[in-house]
């Protein structure tokens, strides 16, 4: 009788754990990567955020396990039937001071550790003259960064390149070159987010927000608007296509030509009074 009651409670306590494990295994294998950690593998800032997250997650896991285990012990050990007489304890000042201090120390540690990592996440590395960047058209022999303007509007992202070219929905960016983004909006608030290329930055009308990335390899990176911006919010997707610096240079020049030609055609049409 006593024994079975004990088992029942133990089963009750084990249930959440079992549920978690069952859920973890229910997920498809490719989901493992994003299941416990933020996305990484596109740009150093995203990688560094994921590494910082890993450390904090481990600390958090230890704290959660500690509290849950203490709770479980209390529930099993001090059940009515096992412990019919409750001790009349009202507190323990030294113990309370000790755990308040311990909590404070832990928080200070997490804060200090995090702060020490912020520089590398928030600021692109100071670039030496890089041939890749020079090829991509970064001025001053490839020192500094390539600036691309990101403008949000309902429900599309627009990208403006230094030579005056622009594109919608898909940004083309050179691999191995630090790209700095100046993010703004012309209507409501949007949020620029490419999970593999670092954290999101809001596009707020009237303000310019900044972030950066440096693509490690060619490929297409996906993201979408992360701030509710109206009925088409879910459809406001974006892509970053990473190409070689030479290919970027060629693309951006060609894009500029196409835009100029289209503008000239439109101007001619307007002058001759023809509807396009």
């Amino acid at each position, binding site marked *: 009788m006593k024994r079975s009651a004990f088992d029942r409670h133990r089963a009750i306590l084990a249930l959440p754990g079992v549920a978690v494990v069952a859920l973890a295994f229910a997920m498809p294998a490719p989901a493992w990567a994003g299941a416990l950690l933020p996305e990484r593998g596109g740009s150093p800032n995203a990688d560094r955020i994921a590494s910082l997250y890993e450390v904090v997650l481990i600390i*958090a896991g230890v704290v959660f396990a500690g509290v849950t285990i203490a709770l479980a012990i209390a529930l099993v050990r001090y059940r009515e039937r096992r412990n019919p007489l409750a001790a009349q304890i009202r507190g323990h000042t030294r113990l309370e001071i000790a755990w308040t201090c311990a909590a404070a120390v832990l928080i200070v540690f997490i804060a200090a550790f995090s702060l020490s990592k912020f520089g590398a996440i928030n600021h692109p590395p100071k670039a030496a003259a890089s041939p890749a960047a020079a090829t991509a058209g970064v001025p001053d022999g490839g020192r500094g960064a390539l600036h691309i303007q990101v403008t949000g509007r309902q429900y599309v992202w627009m990208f403006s390149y230094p030579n005056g070219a622009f594109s919608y929905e898909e940004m083309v960016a050179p691999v191995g070159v630090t790209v700095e983004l100046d993010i703004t909006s012309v209507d409501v608030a949007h949020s620029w987010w490419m999970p593999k290329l670092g954290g999101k930055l809001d596009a707020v009308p009237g303000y310019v927000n900044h972030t950066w990335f440096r693509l490690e390899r060619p490929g297409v990176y996906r993201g979408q608007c992360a701030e509710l911006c109206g009925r088409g919010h879910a459809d406001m997707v974006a892509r970053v296509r990473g190409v070689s610096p030479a290919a970027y240079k060629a693309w951006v020049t060609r894009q500029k030509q196409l835009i100029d030609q289209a503008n000239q055609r439109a101007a001619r049409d307007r002058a001759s009074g023809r509807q396009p």
Partner: protein
Amino acid sequence: MAATTTTPTRIPAGVPQIAVDRVRRPATPGWVGWVTTTDHKRIGVMYLTTAFAFLLIGGVEALLMRSQLAVPKNTLLTPETYNQVVTLHGTTMVFLVVMPVWAGFANYMVPLMIGARDMAFPKLNAFSYWLYAAGAIVFYASLLFTPPEAGWTAYTPLSSGPYIPGNGTDAWIFVIHLTGLSSLLGALNVTVTIANMRAPGMGWGRLPLFCWSLLAQAIMIFLTLPVVAAAVTLLLTDRHFGTCFYDPTCGGSAMLWQHLFWFFGHPEVYIMILPAFGLISEVLPVFARKPIFGYKAIAASSIGIAFLSMLVWAHHMFATPLASVVLAFFMLSSMAIAIPTGVKILNWVATLFHGSIAFRTPLYFAVGFLVLFTLGGITGVILAIYPIDRQLTDTYFVVAHFHFVLVAGSVSAVMAALYYWFPKMTGRALSEPLGKASFWLQFVGFLVTFLVQHSLGLSGMPRRVYTYPADSGWGTDNLVSTIGAFILGVGVLLTVVNVLVSLRRGRRVGPDPWKGNTLEWFTTSPPPPHNFDAIPRVRSVEPMRDIRRAVRERTEAARAG
């Protein structure tokens, strides 16, 4: 103090301090009696029934969203309807469920817990309830026209500019005004009642912790609800009277709204969770048969949380253009709030140690609260680190985080409060087997719904999207989450069934079925209109224990004699 502790505990005998048979108007029968009542208990019950009705409505809205997201490219809801349901769900749960449900318990229980005969301002109390009811009607009347669709945060310029047709946002503004005023007057009433109407002997150090948490909540309500009332008034004038507070095209700032809203919005989280802290601090000692561990630390940390809660608002804005020093300040202040919260959790666990724990339904919900709220608190610390927050904010990770705090936190505590106080309110106990089944369904359903949402957020799914493509890889997690939401829904329904059945068929209980600690258990269940025939002198934090001991000693003495 020393003098009172040496005096033997006794029940006041002889002539009661206030005569029972003072002139009482005959009770008005039927619904007129309810509508015109100024009795804190009836107002409390009206608050609670209205809030639970909206819990079901808000729950249906949640299930609509989960159904839409169960599979990729679903077409159950249009984008327009989805945004409306998002807005209705958030606003309903915050302003029409959690805040008023605590107002309901506070109304019913504060006078009883402190040994008072009613609230300080009974008519104002009724007015608070009717303001809340008016807010609810105004808000839900928008369903007949154009429901709001800017989210419960109503970010400008989406809410202020010409981006959403119709007047739904105005209905949203008015629900904030009306329920805000209701909460302000309610908090005023609770504060004055607690400050002035405590039983003889109940110093501040003997005030029940639920009342302490309501005082801390009242401070936050006084300081932040006027700010959001002003903010939505500016929004109203921007929308209709040509002002430019939030419009960047004519000199306003879209960020101003975010600052004003979150200056209210973050303390709002604590406005919803602090009464839960108080409730847990009442329930655990009763079912562990042991005094609360560290009364002073728990009371003080409530006030500490109230203070810190007003210094953390910009952690909702880590992705907006803010200076690094501002980001660092709000990161550190947000982390600091984990210290008083952590202290409370440790005190609660310590309360259970060396106790003699009775496994009743309120304790189940209280323990569920401890496990899940701790997890929600910990993800809160992770989110406070702003570069990490920039990966996670506005994703399903944040959705999971605040549902751990507000559903597993506040709603678990509401359930605990319901099972704990229902016998006092009705004279009948809720069914224990149904209650425990409801707990397990809610607990498991909650975990299934929200654990996987952390993963969804980590793998890039933003919140408030009405659909997602099939190749995103989010399908399985979303389906799991939807199944969990329905399990959770069944769990809540089971409690509703339990209440309806137990109202008529529940086991009849006496004044003190749980062997409670506080004065509400001193009077009959349900209490008479005047609450107490005689108000006992309070000599500790647990006056009912003193009274029970005195009765036992006297009975033994009588037997021996």
